[in-house]
């Protein structure tokens, strides 16, 4: 049988496994990105809390300390491989007596990791806004909190939509490392298929193809989503009359 023939046979035999793996991969990537975004929003908000000169010393110190903590968090998760994080997290928790499942551990690690990257993206997004945006908001009598929530954050988030999509795509691929703690995602299933049939090359080429197609479909979907939001803006432009000076 030719290579292609063996691969086809393998696909016919193994597709339920691969689909199950793909399902886990997608769920981990999508929810990991969403939770990561949520955690990232909390982290950047803590990091950016406005510190005023005349606040009590204790309050100022707590704010500054928390901001430093978020920076250490980001440094840790960006500075160590997700593979190692997964090991530490899974074995560490179980050793301490917390029984935690493969999937819960995997999802947590992806979310925490994504949070670190998205915190940095959010920070860049906020720092990239003109300082005049907050001056304008403050000059209207808004509080620092309102300025952040109503003016700065929505603009930073809007600008970071492509970066969030990028993170999702990275996560589809990087969740493969969770196979080391036994999460049954796509790569894990591929490996199972390979060791069952001894068709290693065929199995991993097959898995590569599934990853590639998934990522390409996701890229296209993300493109459409961002085009949709652009269209929103141009529809707004066209529906309004051009008269008046």
């Amino acid at each position, binding site marked *: 049988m030719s290579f292609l023939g063996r691969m086809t046979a393998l696909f016919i035999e193994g597709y339920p496994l691969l689909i199950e793996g793909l399902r886990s991969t997608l769920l981990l990537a999508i929810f990991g990105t969403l939770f990561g975004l949520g955690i990232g929003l909390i982290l950047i908000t803590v990091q950016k809390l406005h510190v005023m000169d005349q606040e009590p010393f204790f309050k100022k110190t707590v704010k500054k300390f928390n901001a430093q903590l978020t920076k250490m968090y980001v440094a840790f998760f960006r500075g160590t491989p997700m593979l190692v994080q997964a090991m530490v997290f899974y074995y560490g928790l179980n050793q301490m007596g917390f029984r935690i499942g493969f999937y819960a551990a995997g999802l947590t690690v992806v979310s925490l990791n994504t949070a670190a990257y998205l915190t940095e993206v959010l920070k860049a997004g906020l720092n990239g806004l003109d300082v*005049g*945006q907050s001056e304008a908001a403050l*000059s*209207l*009598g*808004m*509080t*620092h909190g309102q300025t952040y929530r109503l003016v700065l954050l929505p603009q930073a988030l809007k600008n970071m939509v492509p970066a969030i999509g990028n993170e999702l795509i990275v996560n589809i691929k990087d969740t493969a490392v969770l196979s080391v703690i036994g999460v049954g995602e796509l790569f894990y299933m591929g490996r199972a298929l390979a060791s069952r049939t001894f068709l290693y090359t065929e199995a991993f080429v097959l898995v590569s193809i599934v990853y590639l197609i998934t990522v390409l479909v996701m890229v296209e979907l993300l493109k459409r989503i961002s085009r949709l939001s652009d269209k929103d803006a141009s529809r707004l432009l066209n529906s309004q009359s051009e008269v*008046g*000076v």
Partner: protein
Amino acid sequence: MITVENLLKDFGQGPILKDVNLTFKEGEVTVIMGPSGSGKSTLLRCLNFLEIPTEGQVMFEDITLIETPAILQAVRQEVAMVFQSFYLFNHMTALENCSLAPRKVLGLSKEVASQRAEDALVEVGLKDFLHRLPKTLSGGQKQRVAIARALAMKPKVILFDEPTSALDPENVQEVLQTIAALAAKKMTLIVVTHEMGFAKKVADRVIFMDEGNVVEDAKAHSFFIAPKTERARNFIKNLSY
């Protein structure tokens, strides 16, 4: 209405403002002129504490401004500001730009705030642009939205920081006319600008600054006809080339 006493501002490289004392009266249109670096924008930004003075006091009516959120928020509701580069909220339509603060700061209902915002936009001649995003507007239109955003707060004073300096020449007129219309309604306006024609026509009073000092403070017509200092005479001569 606004009183400035012994105001000194130093960003760390020598004072930008040196002991400025001024009073702004209700219903008065004041134009602040002077060369770049003379401290006129800094002075304006000290009036609503966007810049915190190094020394001295700013008083709005009977409130002395201090760096306390409650006081600053209360004063800024009454003292609006229009910036050189507009600083519209880019993710919001013109109407949303103007209704945001009335809703969130003044606590008005969505309907009342939107109505106020719409009235303000109509007042600056933008009734056909309510739902446009800032990026689809010309510079002059953006600045008029920024003026409407200030008006929607129904402030007692509006501060203008070089409102036409970032505009294409052909957009300058529409913005100046909008400001002149506010002056005609006896609003209290404090305008930092280089537009001498505007100052001559609209201002009641001209403050001329140089190197952090108020060099002249005079009725507008006497300032332009007979400036008292050599420095101001040269400045006016250069503006009218």
